[in-house]
């Protein structure tokens, strides 16, 4: 009952005029960002974080979380009408969304996506409200070994579950951690890693500098270089009566995918560093697996739209759970939100529930309001978003560059950091060409300054004995799971090798 009263209070806070306005603006921006191919929630949050210093921290995070929500809804719009996913989280939506649009049923695909997203978001919000206070209570007893073990798990998830090149993923993680170590040694206070003796490095490298460089400059260059072909657009006919009919059909033919996506999405989302993209792909796979007509998947089955859309919304809420309760982000976007909280002077983690209940519950309350706002704005303004999708990229791209540079300066007030943003942007473009994943580096630069002291404190506690990570009741199992995840790619590689040998012998 206490939770319900805290939630009611949080919703009341989220409905305050300033916060409500931020939700509506955030959701609309998110829908636009999510719909624009090449831009995702992570770009929007990274580029717009510097301008949130205008409002109090509670309003700022509500605004950014609303962008996150809106982007999850928006991704489906371009997946269906253009056949290009607006963001990686909506890749699976194209599998069945685009065929439906080609059959002249784009309206059904968009309505199914919106409803599934709403249900996914709502289910995840209920799970979040139930689990967050419990997890925060448990996490209050965590010491340095437990926190370091959780960090290890976050990085291991990237390695074990990510589909990217493993050595390059590990390189990216370590690179982000080293960047986070530049400046001063937190314990002795001695200058550390002042690269090429350039004094600008003494102040360290802020996570925002890397995030804006990677997502503001690097990704824009990548999108400009990649998007050269003409895109075939399908404009849906959306009428009130047609949408009511589509709603009934979406409910009838998409409930199974929605249920799978809502539940699976949340639990994949809470895995540190997993996020909404694997959640949506996995949900699509499971929905197809359990379907009576798996052959219809890929040809325009509403379940194939509902499952990934419910999952990406559910996972985006799920990924906030480890961020708020443990101080460990569940996705690259939440890594940036976590970094923002540090800038606003808050300490993410279980103590937040005790010290800043209005902040935490205001945010949780805003999830419900944002979810409702997103479905209403999405359905009411689909034609407007489709019209906006026609905006030439040659107008949008320079605006994003300008916002990245000006926003980056507003946050750091240092031209040295602006040059670093440009260097990181160009470097990110080159590394991406060679399949180096960059999200792990952004996550690592946020977590590095938390991971290093916890490792050093743990080793000090055990007089240098690393078995402390295995012998403690909570840290032990987490470390073992992390090691299993780290070993997973090697096992897969060995199996593949044996399979190859067996095939050659036969």
């Amino acid at each position: 009952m206490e939770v319900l009263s805290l939630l009611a209070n949080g919703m009341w806070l989220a409905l305050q005029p300033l916060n409500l306005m931020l939700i509506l603006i955030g959701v609309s921006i998110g829908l636009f960002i999510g719909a624009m191919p090449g831009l995702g929630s992570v770009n929007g949050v990274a580029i717009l974080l510097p301008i949130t210093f205008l409002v109090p921290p509670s309003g700022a995070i509500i605004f950014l979380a609303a962008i996150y929500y809106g982007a999850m809804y928006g991704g489906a719009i371009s997946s269906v009408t253009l056949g290009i996913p607006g963001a990686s989280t909506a890749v699976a939506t194209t599998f069945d969304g685009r065929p439906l649009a080609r059959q002249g049923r784009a309206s059904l695909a968009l309505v199914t996506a919106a409803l599934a997203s709403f249900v996914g978001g709502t289910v995840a919000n209920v799970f979040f409200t139930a689990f967050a206070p419990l997890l925060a209570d448990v996490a209050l007893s965590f010491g340095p070994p437990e926190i370091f073990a959780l960090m290890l798990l976050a990085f291991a998830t990237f390695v074990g579950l990510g589909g990217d090149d493993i050595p390059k993923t590990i390189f990216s993680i370590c690179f982000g951690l080293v960047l986070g170590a530049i400046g001063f040694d937190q314990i002795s206070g001695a200058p550390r890693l002042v690269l090429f003796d350039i004094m600008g490095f003494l102040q360290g490298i802020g996570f925002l500098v890397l995030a804006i460089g990677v997502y503001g400059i690097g990704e824009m260059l990548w999108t400009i270089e990649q998007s050269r072909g003409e895109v075939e657009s399908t404009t849906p006919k959306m009428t009130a009566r047609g949408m009511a009919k589509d709603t009934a059909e979406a409910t009838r033919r998409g409930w199974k995918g929605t249920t799978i996506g809502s539940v699976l999405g949340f639990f994949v989302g809470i895995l540190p560093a997993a996020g909404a993209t694997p959640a949506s792909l996995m949900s699509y796979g499971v929905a197809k697996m359990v379907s009576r007509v798996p052959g219809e998947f890929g040809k325009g089955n509403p379940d194939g739209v509902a499952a990934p859309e419910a999952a990406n919304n559910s996972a985006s809420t799920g990924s906030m759970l480890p961020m708020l309760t443990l101080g460990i982000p569940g996705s690259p976007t939440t890594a940036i939100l976590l970094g923002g909280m540090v800038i606003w002077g808050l300490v993410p983690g279980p103590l937040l529930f005790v010290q800043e209940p209005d902040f935490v519950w205001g945010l949780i309350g805003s999830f419900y309001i944002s979810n409702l706002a997103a479905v209403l704005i999405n359905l009411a303004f689909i034609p407007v978003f489709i019209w906006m999708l026609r905006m030439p990229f040659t107008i949008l791209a320079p605006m994003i560059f300008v916002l990245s540079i000006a926003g980056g300066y507003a946050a750091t007030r240092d031209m040295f950091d602006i040059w670093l943003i440009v260097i990181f942007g160009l470097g990110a473009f080159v590394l991406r060409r060679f399949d180096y994943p960059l999200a792990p580096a952004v996550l690592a630069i946020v977590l590095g300054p938390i991971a290093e002291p916890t490792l050093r404190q743990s080793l000090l506690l055990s007089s240098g004995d690393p078995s402390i990570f295995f012998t403690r009741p909570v840290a032990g199992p987490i470390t073992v799971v992390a090691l299993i995840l780290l070993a997973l790619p090697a096992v897969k590689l060995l199996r593949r090798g044996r399979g190859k040998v067996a095939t050659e012998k036969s």
Partner: protein
Amino acid sequence: MRNGEIVTAGVLALFSIYLMWKSTELPVGYIPDRGPGGGAWPFWLSAIMLICCGITAFNWWRRTTPPSQSDEPFLDGYGWRMVGLVGGGVIVFVALIQIISMYGAIAVFLLYYLRGLGRHSWKLSLTTAITTPLAFFFFFEGAMRITMPTGLPFTDPVFDVLYEIIY
């Protein structure tokens, strides 16, 4: 792409070695009663980075990764031109900030991009190039009270007028 893959791995390996060497400016071993030295964390992470570069080079030799199998160039003519024009434009934009101010640089960059690269009309390009920096000025300086670089002294008369409006 194949050549680029090994060159990139080589450059990153050299950078990792530099980071390892730089980390040794602080102790990298375990100091009794004080825990791991200040250089230990970046030293061992850089060592892992170096190992990863080695594995990438090994995979390149075995041709097991997509870039190591690809005969395509790193960028084709269109790619080089686009990245050169856009990336170069961003570099010039940042270089101009300390000469003609943040807002002046935004105006020049937008005009260059919209008219030069986007081939939009003069009307749209000029309107956007003038109104965007003005909107940014009133947002950052007026609402957020963040002072952006104003460039060399010759821009002062313009800023005197603008500051007169907001203060």
